[in-house]
């Protein structure tokens, strides 16, 4: 990986970590730099410790990395927690009126005498603006981009506020020029301009691109961002957004809307999804497509609401009891959050079954740069076999909603179409939708309907591409991950290769359909496979084994709520390769050295 630059801002909730973070991100992205940001925060409104890392570079930045180049601690606590981990060539910019650099460090200390510089007024905001401006100067960034953004930001508060802010920024900028060492490598730039968005925004925009016209939700971290984007853009996007009394109401309302013919979507996290599982079965039995986003957070139960985990997979696999076709996919990065949504809607519509998107906090609340051209709203829309108006060919008497077909798909008429009235039921039914227990419970009809629905699985498998190996096939070690760990594994692979350990990567995006055979074919020719998962029990490893019997040589797991950093994976891989002879399924549990 090319040279990157990481800024980190630490403070208590409510201290305003977000705003300077946003400004850094905007400046980086407008400068044509890629970036990746992760905010480690807690489930409290005030206090605690929030730690935002923004890492930027010319090449795609796939994770927030291992090192911090510039630290801005907004309180003593943040200074104390992180100073010890700062390397040489790094710098710490801080308010020297209130914060002391506790322990010794090799990093450059950049104390800002905030009171003196700002003349003591409104010091919270000013402290942040001073630090921001000073930092940019040290990175070799011109003053103009900052001025531009501050102007945009304070415009609606009037020109006086703008001027005040520009003045204080200029003071910080100049003070750094006079007093601090600039970084050895000034921040690069490119001719590009990137959009910066979170996974939640990407999921919501993906819904808009997919033609979702009904979105409903009950707030639940870390999925609430999807609701917020939808609500804010509802009127312009022509999407009806409803907040419902609970998640049971959410999925049932979404299915109702979908049944009446719109594309409907909802998002929640594990606990809310638990309440939706009964509804998922309804979608399957009525063959009414619905797309549910589950943004995973650390469980079980309420768990650690603001921390990440990949721990909901088995809930998804078993959700809804009984056997029925379903779709489950985990996006691999923030852009993929955007892309996966229309793809999932197309498949759910075509195969008339529930589709689940398995995101997680890391992506959903993380942010990354995306080339705006990639946010394609002209993506394919395939609504499947749907009857939206009367067609003389489908006569009044001829229409059977659950017609037994070779593909298992039966054309779906939406309410309002003359000549196609029928009742969709969650009880088992015959081709015409008549309950088989209201008629005569009939094992043959029951089996025929089960077989019909399950035949869709073949079509689903054919509609999704199997995963492919990234990197040299002959590598010494293959790292297998799923969903959001894509970026950090990619970087770990690069680091391993740099260190002379040849590594490659297999990242799984589709859980159902899985393409187990294709996966095993790849893994069978791998020399040593290590499964990387952000959960305790190796949920994906267990699932892959259930479908293929495949057991990897080792595994790296993390279940402390924080995401992997590249060095966690690199070190664990090295450790496991060192005692490879045992060939048992070794477990590595990386420890977080940063106590966020």
């Amino acid at each position: 990986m090319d040279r990157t630059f990481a800024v980190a801002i630490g403070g208590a909730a409510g201290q305003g970590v977000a705003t300077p973070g946003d400004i850094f991100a905007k400046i980086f992205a407008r400068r044509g730099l890629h970036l990746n940001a992760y905010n480690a925060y807690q489930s409290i409104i005030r206090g605690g410790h929030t730690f935002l890392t923004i890492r930027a570079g010319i090449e795609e930045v796939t994770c927030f990395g291992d090192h911090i180049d510039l630290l801005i601690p907004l309180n003593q606590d943040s200074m104390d927690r992180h100073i010890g981990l700062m390397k040489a060539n790094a710098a710490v910019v801080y308010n020297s009126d209130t914060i002391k650099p506790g322990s010794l460090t090799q990093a450059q200390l950049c104390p800002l005498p905030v009171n003196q510089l700002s003349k003591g007024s409104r010091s919270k905001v000013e402290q942040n603006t001073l630090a921001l401006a000073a930092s940019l100067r040290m990175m070799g960034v011109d003053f103009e981009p900052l001025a531009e953004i501050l102007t945009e930001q304070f415009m609606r508060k009037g020109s006086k506020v703008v001027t005040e802010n520009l003045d204080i920024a200029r003071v910080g900028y100049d003070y750094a020029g006079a007093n601090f060492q600039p970084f050895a490598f000034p921040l690069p730039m490119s001719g590009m301009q990137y959009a910066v968005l979170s996974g939640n925004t990407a999921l919501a925009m993906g819904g808009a691109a997919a033609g979702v016209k009904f979105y409903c939700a009950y707030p639940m971290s870390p999925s609430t961002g999807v609701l917020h984007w939808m609500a804010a853009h509802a009127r312009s996007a022509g999407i009806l957004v409803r907040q419902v009394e609970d998640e049971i109401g959410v999925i049932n309302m979404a299915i109702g809307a979908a049944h009446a013919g719109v594309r409907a979507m909802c998002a929640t996290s594990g606990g809310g999804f638990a309440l939706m599982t009964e509804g998922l079965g309804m979608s399957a039995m009525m063959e009414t497509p619905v797309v549910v986003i589950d943004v995973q957070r650390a469980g079980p139960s309420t768990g650690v609401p603001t921390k990440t985990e990949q721990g909901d997979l088995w809930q998804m696999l078993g959700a809804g009891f009984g056997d029925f076709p379903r779709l489950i996919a985990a996006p691999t990065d923030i852009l993929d959050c955007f892309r996966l949504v229309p793809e999932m809607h197309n498949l759910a519509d075509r195969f008339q079954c529930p589709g689940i998107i398995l995101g997680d906090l890391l992506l959903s609340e993380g942010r990354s740069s995306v080339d705006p051209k990639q946010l394609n709203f002209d993506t394919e829309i395939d609504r499947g076999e749907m009857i939206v108006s009367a067609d003389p060919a489908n006569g009044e008497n001829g229409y059977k909603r659950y017609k037994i077909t070779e593909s298992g798909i039966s054309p779906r008429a939406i309410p309002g179409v003359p000549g196609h009235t029928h009742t969709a039921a969650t009880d088992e039914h015959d081709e015409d939708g008549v309950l088989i227990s209201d008629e005569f419970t009939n094992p043959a009809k029951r089996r025929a309907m089960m077989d019909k629905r399950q035949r869709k699985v073949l079509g689903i498998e054919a509609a999704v591409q199997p995963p492919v190996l990234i990197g040299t096939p002959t590598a010494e070690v293959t790292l297998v991950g799923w969903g959001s760990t894509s970026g950090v594994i990619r970087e770990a692979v690069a680091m391993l290769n740099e260190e002379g350990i040849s590594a490659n990567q297999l990242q799984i995006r589709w859980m159902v359909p899985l393409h187990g055979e294709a996966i095993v074919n790849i893994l069978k020719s791998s020399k040593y496979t290590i499964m990387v998962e952000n959960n305790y029990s190796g949920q994906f490893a267990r699932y892959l084994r259930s479908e293929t019997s495949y057991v990897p040589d080792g595994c790296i797991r993390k279940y402390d709520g924080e995401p992997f950093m590249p060095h966690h994976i690199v070190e664990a891989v090295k450790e496991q390769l060192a005692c490879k002879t045992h060939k048992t399924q070794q477990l590595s549990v990386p420890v977080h050295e940063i106590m966020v």
Partner: protein
Amino acid sequence: MATVLQLQPLTAADFKGKVDPDWCPGCGDFGVLSSLQKVLAEMNILPHNVVTISGIGCSSNLPGFIDTYGMHTLHGRALAVATGVKMANHKLNVVVTGGDGDGFGIGGNHFIHTIRRNVDLLYVAMDNQIYGLTTGQTSPTSRKGMKTKSMPYGNVEEPINPITLALAAGATFVARGFSAEPKHLANLIKQGLEHKGFSFIDVFSPCVTYNHDNTYAWFRERIKKLEDDVSYDSSDWHEAMKRGLLWGDEIPIGKFFQRTDLPSLHEAEPLLDQGEPLAHRELRIAPEIVRNFITELM
């Protein structure tokens, strides 16, 4: 609720479902079904413009017995599903049918919240004060002291009063019918279908198999039509509360309350207020709007 004009006069027979009801002979639900079919025909609403939605229970089997679009959903969830249907296509006539357990037991939360949203649909609860389909357990409307398979020593809980609960939740149309008074019931159903907003009709619909306390005879002795009292003013909420509390020698049926000054949910939603139903709108978003979405991020 908007009605769609017919091409030729309809009859109740036009609403005959694919199979005959398999309710026990004498079950109160027959009366509700036939009243509904009769009124839909009378109002000349075409079958394909109606969606009948239910949960699970004997009464919830109704959508299978009527020729309209139907959804026989999950126990307790019909109102949530119906709200989705109405939002996606507000031109459809949405009728929700179900039982007391379905609506006031497991479905109680959706009941309250659908009411406060004033979703424009007709909700007919077939209230037999028992769980019929599961063969006779206490329901939220079972009277205190009533003995059932689940409370063989007698119910010790105060029952739900669907009328006063609906009023308190802010319902804009609240009525009670009796399945053995078909004309009266049909009239309520008609008013409910015409009402723009959430219309709730609690119908005494005796379970002849499992409820031997609240029988046809028991109700017949007690019911008294609000309409027979000319002084009764159904726009007076407090008076409706008073009548709603009556339960004993006299049990009122009829329209307790109606107000027409509140918009229904789809009227209150600017997005739906004009134009095609959502289900028939263009899926693509205009390029200039998309551009704005992306510019915001830059």
